[in-house]
């Protein structure tokens, strides 16, 4: 890139050509005020507050610093008299159509307009008699957005956020001149216009025009202390800033420094914190005395739980105890839970909520690509040429991937959405394939078949980087297109057209979000996804890959740290003696050889009477998607039920011991998101009452059952686990940077953003036979 020299306020700086004046000034540490500009939004230059004086020889002109690119030899003055006069007038004009009720405004203290007025000492009296807008306050029934368009300064950040970040595109400018306002098309209520409740417009609003409903009338911005931690409600692993007040979360904002979400959050992450603030939070342990649960200290609870588990273990054997972890635990807690089961209870009956599916992702992708997780990063989805979104309602369940897919479509890519319903993502899709529930495998085979039949695949790539292509080729001929069309419920021609469209642009990116209801519980599907991507030459390249995402917050961490029946930490099979030996050597836990049960099997076993005790960590058994009668029947047959959760869930009534746990924002530790990024969690606030982090509770239980296995600290547990997980390469917790690190890590602590192309013969990607 060519370099140019500019002089700003007398200081010279050399910057790259195309840099804006604002960026150049930032490098020099010179402040230029901005209102409509936001570093994470496209440029707009609507407010003109950023004007700077561009001095050229005998004359000068004012240019907008936020968009104007520097020119060689440019001379800029940022605070000259001409600039200040213009800025002041602009501020006066802005304040002349603003209610100026800072005394009662929600945004006081964090309002950018207020700060600017303070900085330039502008009073709202300049055009006092001028007309002001008198829109209705809060006219919209939106559950999360509080609208007061009288405060709007028309910076249009909301329009850009809605268009360029979320892609929902509901906000627009209506009218012109003084009567212009921010509204939806035809002034529809936001929900009818297609609001997806992502809340980005609130986050970007510099004033309180589009404001929060949560905390309105309660909080003052300076009393809040935002702490950034990882949201564990979905596997995207977004970092979010939690504003808390008196032990309650009042609002959540995206953390722009996080590479996974870059400031964006979804509906869940931003607004779903009621369970943390819930009045049903468990604040003490409960132990069943006869028919009644009596509250007691955590120590008593732990003791009672340990005694009950030990009793079942000693009488009916370790295999009659099952432990199910929820999706919002930290890596260390998963590790401790599997240690408890394998070391202290003597079985392999440990599973986590997304275990059955995450394991299939690992099995399928691991065997064909050598990396059993999402191959690329979430950010790279936005760089894809063609995106195929399969599985869950992506906007709801895996929102970050969905908004990146929309970005790819906006930038000229192709977006194909396959979902039985008309989900929000179809709004921006080129093709919507309304396939039958759970028939994604047939659809993928249809794509593969079309691509092979019509020779649309990348022959050089296949020859160079893959093995056993003939196997798939031979095999796919046996499958008839008619059969696939019948299974998916989509006509042959439609599948073929979609496949041609998908193959038309590279890199092709496949997103698969696990939806527990329909997701196939076999690895073939994932192998076929990998095969499809390999045919298009899109594995190991930027913007491509097989991006399979689990269905729970820390699903990847749970698999990696061994909270799964089939694998020891590091995905070492339990059945293999060498891996059991390695584990015994590393932490003194001798895992039993006998295979454990995953959680659906556990519930079946409870019904059969084979499983006598169940320890649920952050799991509500009635929300697992199993029939209510089945769960009720199963729980009633249990001898011992230990419930450990942060709120009173429906299993509370049936429990023998209840342990109060902390929510995920009250924990320290690490979590791994779907793109394999290990990030550190930070404690946002103290847990209510006696509630303790799952780590403490699990550690206490282990201490009661087998004191030798008790862990010293979270960091020690992480280091211990890192010894067993070869991808972490002996990583220690304090070496994890703020932005996290993506495994496989290299010794020095650097991560791997995406699966690379194979370098030697052994590591070549593998095709598997197609199976329907």
């Amino acid at each position: 890139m060519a370099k140019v020299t500019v002089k700003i306020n007398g200081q010279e700086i050399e910057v790259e050509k195309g840099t804006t004046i604002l960026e150049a000034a930032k490098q020099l540490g010179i402040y230029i005020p901005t209102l409509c500009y936001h570093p994470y939004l496209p440029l707009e230059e609507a407010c003109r507050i950023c004007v700077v004086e561009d001095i050229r020889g005998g004359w000068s002109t004012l240019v907008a610093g936020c968009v104007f690119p520097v020119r060689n030899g440019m001379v800029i003055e940022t605070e000259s008299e001409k600039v200040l006069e213009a800025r002041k007038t602009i501020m006066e004009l802005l304040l002349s159509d603003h209610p100026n009720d800072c005394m009662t405004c929600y945004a006081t203290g964090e309002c950018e307009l207020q700060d600017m007025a303070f900085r330039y000492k502008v009073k709202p009296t300049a055009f006092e008699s001028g007309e002001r807008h008198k829109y209705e306050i809060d006219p919209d029934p939106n559950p999360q957005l509080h609208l007061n368009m009288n405060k709007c300064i028309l910076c249009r950040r909301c329009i850009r956020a809605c268009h360029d970040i979320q892609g929902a595109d509901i906000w627009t400018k209506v009218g012109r001149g003084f009567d212009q306002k921010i509204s939806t098309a035809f002034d529809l209520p936001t929900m009818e216009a297609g609001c997806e409740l992502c809340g980005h417009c609130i986050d970007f609003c510099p004033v309180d025009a589009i404001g929060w409903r949560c905390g309105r009338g309660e909080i003052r911005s300076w009393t809040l202390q935002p702490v950034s931690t990882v949201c564990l409600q979905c596997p995207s692993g977004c970092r979010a800033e939690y504003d808390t007040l008196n032990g309650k979360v009042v609002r959540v904002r995206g953390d722009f420094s996080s590479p996974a979400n870059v400031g964006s959050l979804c509906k869940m992450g931003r607004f779903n914190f009621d369970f943390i603030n819930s009045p049903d939070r468990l604040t003490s342990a409960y132990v069943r005395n006869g028919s009644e649960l009596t509250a007691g200290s955590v120590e008593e609870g732990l003791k009672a739980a340990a005694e009950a588990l030990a009793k079942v273990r000693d009488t009916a054997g370790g295999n009659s105890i099952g432990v199910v972890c929820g999706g919002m635990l930290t890596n260390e807690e998963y590790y401790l839970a599997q240690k408890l089961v394998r070391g202290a209870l003597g079985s392999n009956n440990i599973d986590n909520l997304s275990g059955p599916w995450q394991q299939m992702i690992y099995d399928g992708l691991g065997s064909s690509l050598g990396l059993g997780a999402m191959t690329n990063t979430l950010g790279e989805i936005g760089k894809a040429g063609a995106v195929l979104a399969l599985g869950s309602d992506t906007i709801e369940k895996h929102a970050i991937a969905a908004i990146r897919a929309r970005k790819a479509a906006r930038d000229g890519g192709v977006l194909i959405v396959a979902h039985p319903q008309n989900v929000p993502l179809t709004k921006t899709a080129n093709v919507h394939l309304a396939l039958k529930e759970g028939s994604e495998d047939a659809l993928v085979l249809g794509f593969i078949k079309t691509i092979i039949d019509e020779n649309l695949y990348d022959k050089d790539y296949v020859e160079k980087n893959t093995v056993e292509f003939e196997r798939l080729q031979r095999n796919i001929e046996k499958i008839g297109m008619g059969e696939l069309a019948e299974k998916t419920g989509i006509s042959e021609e439609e599948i073929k057209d979609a496949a041609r469209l998908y193959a038309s642009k590279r890199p092709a990116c496949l997103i698969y979000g696990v939806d527990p209801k329909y997701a196939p519980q076999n690895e073939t599907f994932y192998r076929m996804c990998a095969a499809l991507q390999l045919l298009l030459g899109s594995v190991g390249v930027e913007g491509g890959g097989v991006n399979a995402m689990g269905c729970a917050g820390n699903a990847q961490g749970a698999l990696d740290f061994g909270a799964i029946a089939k694998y020891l930490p590091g995905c070492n099979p339990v059945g293999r003696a060498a891996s059991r030996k390695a584990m015994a050597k590393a932490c003194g836990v001798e895992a039993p050889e006998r295979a454990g049960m995953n959680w659906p099997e556990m519930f079946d076993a409870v019904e059969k009477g084979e499983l006598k005790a169940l320890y649920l960590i952050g799991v509500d058994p009635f929300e697992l998607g199993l029939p209510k009668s089945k769960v009720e029947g199963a729980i009633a047959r249990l001898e011992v039920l230990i419930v450990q959760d942060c709120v009173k869930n429906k299993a509370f009534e049936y429990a023998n011991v209840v342990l109060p746990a902390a929510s995920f924002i009250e924990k320290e530790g690490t979590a791994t998101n779907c793109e394999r990024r290990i990030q550190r969690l930070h404690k946002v606030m103290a847990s209510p009452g006696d509630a303790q982090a799952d780590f403490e509770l699990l550690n206490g239980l282990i201490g009661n059952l087998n004191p030798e296995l008790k862990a010293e600290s979270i960091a020690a547990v992480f280091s211990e686990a890192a010894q067993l997980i070869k991808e972490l390469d002996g990583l220690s917790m304090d070496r994890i940077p703020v932005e996290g690190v993506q495994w496989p890590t290299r010794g020095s602590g650097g991560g791997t953003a995406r699966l690379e192309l194979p370098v030697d013969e052994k590591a070549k990607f593998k095709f598997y036979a197609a199976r329907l």
Partner: protein
Amino acid sequence: MLGRFKTLRKDLTETPLTLFARKDAALSSKAEEGKAKALKPFCDPDGKRSCITVCAPKAGCLCDAEPVRKALEEEIKSRSLSFTVGSAKTGCGGKCKRGPLVGFPQKSFFYVGVNAETVADVVQETLVRGRILFPLLSIDPNRSYRSDIYYERDTGLIAAIDENVCMVDVAKYFLDFEEGLSCGKCVPCRLGMKRMQETMERIVMGRGTETDMEQIRILCQTMIDAPHCDFAVTSSRPVLSAMTHFEDEFKAHIERKECQAGVCKELVELQKKAERRQRLQQKKKKKK
């Protein structure tokens, strides 16, 4: 100003406009030679101001004004016309690149860049036949250099306005028109125009204060300096131009609350009331 335009326009409509072409002129002049004497004279040779003038050069003048004067005099003499060639007061410093200038003070227009060769055409076409030779007429496509006509290509507007039009009202008219046309993107245009219009409204209603004019000037300056596009620049220009060239009218509106043109209704009402009061007072005095 308007009077001059009116007569000029009348002349032009009465005599058909043809762009000067030597061949045609030669043909037509022969054909019409007989009728030429019957034509109404172009101007009055005995008038106060001379019919035709040539700029009076100073020493070291770049243009050949003196040969043009001689040629003109000879041409007039040869045609036995009674015009005298006067000298135009140009204040030329001797460096003018547009000279020599040939003026027609009675008709209020002038030619620039005349040379000795074109003199014959000037006399035949303009003095005898009363036609304007457009190629010689001084019109700059970019900007007029006449101080009494404000013309700019950016605005593309020449407004001919007589004494019956109130300049404040004109400025307000432009603002009313443009206020609704702003796209609403940048603040100087969206809000600046609105506030300016409101201020102007106040002045027209007779509620203007002294600060209002300053307010408008500041807003105009911001709208010229800092907007996103040229719309704000060009729409503030007429206002600024009206305010600079007709400041007294604005001041009359604000300080004396009167509209000389009698256009601003509210002010006219005020004026009438004041007059009535005066008349009454005078009557009372007389009675006494």
